[in-house]
């Protein structure tokens, strides 16, 4: 961890335009949750549907894309990363610091709102709020790591990230059973399944498999991003 790298990353991430985007989705989630609760009363299975479909399935990955790629992609694009890299700081330290910042931002703008939405929908009933809050936190970590790596390896990280988040996680993950095993959303759902009362949440992946895969993916992508950054070549200079 390097405090200056963290400060620069956070300042860059929370620029005005990106902050509006980061705030929009969680606000929408909470508004929907409050509205559903007010209009049709408390129904735990509806709550679980909203939280797994909209919160875990859409919002967390999108916020993860913005925070993960945004923590490093723009600096590589405009070349300002030079000022971080031309310093006696190891590149893995830079990646790890940026990862921690991306995780914090994703947790703050995706996992915390998920928990709040859970409370708004179901209160403390059947531990739904806390289950989805923890699931969203776990997936925030994995998404931040995956999308940070994307930000290092491709200039089109946001597009690739969104396609991955929406097509793989959203569409294929719910249609093809094989893809479910390799879906961050399913891993976090298995965590929610374990925490919430029996039968409220349904996941297709066993908890041990999910946890192992989650750790492997997070550690692996972060390590790889560190290696890629060590041999970062500054292209695009005339």
């Amino acid at each position, binding site marked *: 961890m390097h405090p200056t790298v963290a400060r620069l990353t956070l300042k860059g991430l929370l620029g005005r335009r990106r902050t509006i985007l980061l705030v929009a989705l969680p606000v929408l989630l909470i508004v929907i949750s409050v509205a559903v609760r007010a209009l049709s009363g408390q129904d735990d299975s509806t709550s679980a549907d909203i939280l797994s479909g909209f919160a875990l399935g859409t919002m967390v990955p999108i916020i993860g894309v913005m925070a993960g790629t945004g923590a490093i992609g723009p*600096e590589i694009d405009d070349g300002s990363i030079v000022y971080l890299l031309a310093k*006696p700081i190891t590149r893995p330290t830079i990646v790890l610091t940026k990862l921690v910042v991306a995780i914090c931002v994703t947790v703050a703008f995706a996992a915390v709102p998920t928990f709040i939405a859970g409370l708004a929908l179901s209160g403390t009933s059947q531990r739904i709020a806390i289950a989805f809050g923890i699931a969203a936190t776990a997936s925030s970590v994995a998404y931040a790591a995956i999308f940070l790596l994307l930000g290092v390896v491709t200039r089109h990280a946001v597009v690739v990230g969104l396609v991955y988040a929406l097509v793989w996680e959203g569409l294929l993950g719910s249609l093809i059973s094989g893809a479910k095993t390799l879906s961050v959303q399913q891993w976090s759902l298995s965590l929610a399944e374990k925490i919430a009362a029996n039968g409220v949440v349904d996941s297709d992946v066993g908890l041990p498999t999910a946890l192992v895969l989650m750790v492997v993916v997070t550690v692996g992508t972060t390590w790889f991003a560190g290696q890629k950054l060590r041999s970062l070549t500054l292209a695009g200079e005339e």
Partner: protein
Amino acid sequence: MTTISIDHVSRWFGNVVAVNDVTMDIGPGVTGLLGPNGAGKSTLINMMGGFLAPSTGTVTLDGATIWRNEQVYRSIGLVPEREGMYDFLTGKEFVLANAELHGLPDPGAAARRALATVEMEYAQDRKISTYSKGMRQRVKMASALVHEPSVLLLDEPFNGMDPRQRLQLMDLLRRMGADGRTVLFSSHILEEVEQLAHHIEVVVAGRHAASGDFREIRRLMTDRPHRYLVRSSDDRQLAAALIADASTAGIELDWTERALRIQAIDFRRFTELLPRVAKEAGIRLYEVSPSDESLESVFSYLVAA
């Protein structure tokens, strides 16, 4: 005293060879890396700055490999050509951040010193996004100087600067060189390099074309045969008068162009000779144009030499 050694370095991108078997040592003092656009100057500087691996050969800083070695940045200050630089910070915040990233014991004092060196204190509390190109360049300089490096690498530092800023920066780089630091800057403008550098390395088309004192390079550049296209009221008589002088090496009567193609070997003498001869013989000169004065042709002459 720090030396960067480039030893039999080549770098290619796919099928394109950007740097071709270059060997040079950059020692203390100001060195200019001169060459036309696309000659491989940035590629060389990127390799010296640790942002590009050589395809073959080695680039070392006092014997230590630069590629994938973060420790070299304790003694290297880098001024990149690109403009991206955390525009959301103020100049002061930016330089301070650089000082902190270097792990300096008193980053605040180091940042103040660096900003004073480049005379940017007056605008240090403004956001970088509001800066002019010259101001950005100076803040980049401050960020590169903040840890008082023994090596300073600058990629086209004078691009987009106005004449006054140019003089200020030249003055600063001269002082850095006089302090015994190793200062290397790239440029495609001979005059710029000659005003500042005590030593010049010329690269053309990826190859190391010449190396030495600026006077030697200047002589190489002005002593080459100059070609002129001349139209006059009596080409044949003018040709006869000119070829008698030792400053010309060849004259061709070009019938299709209806002009003389003259190759001069003593540039200065020829430029005095031509109008004098024409006047004495009562010949009117309609056109005198150098036919190979482009920078590229000057450089390619150097490569061939």
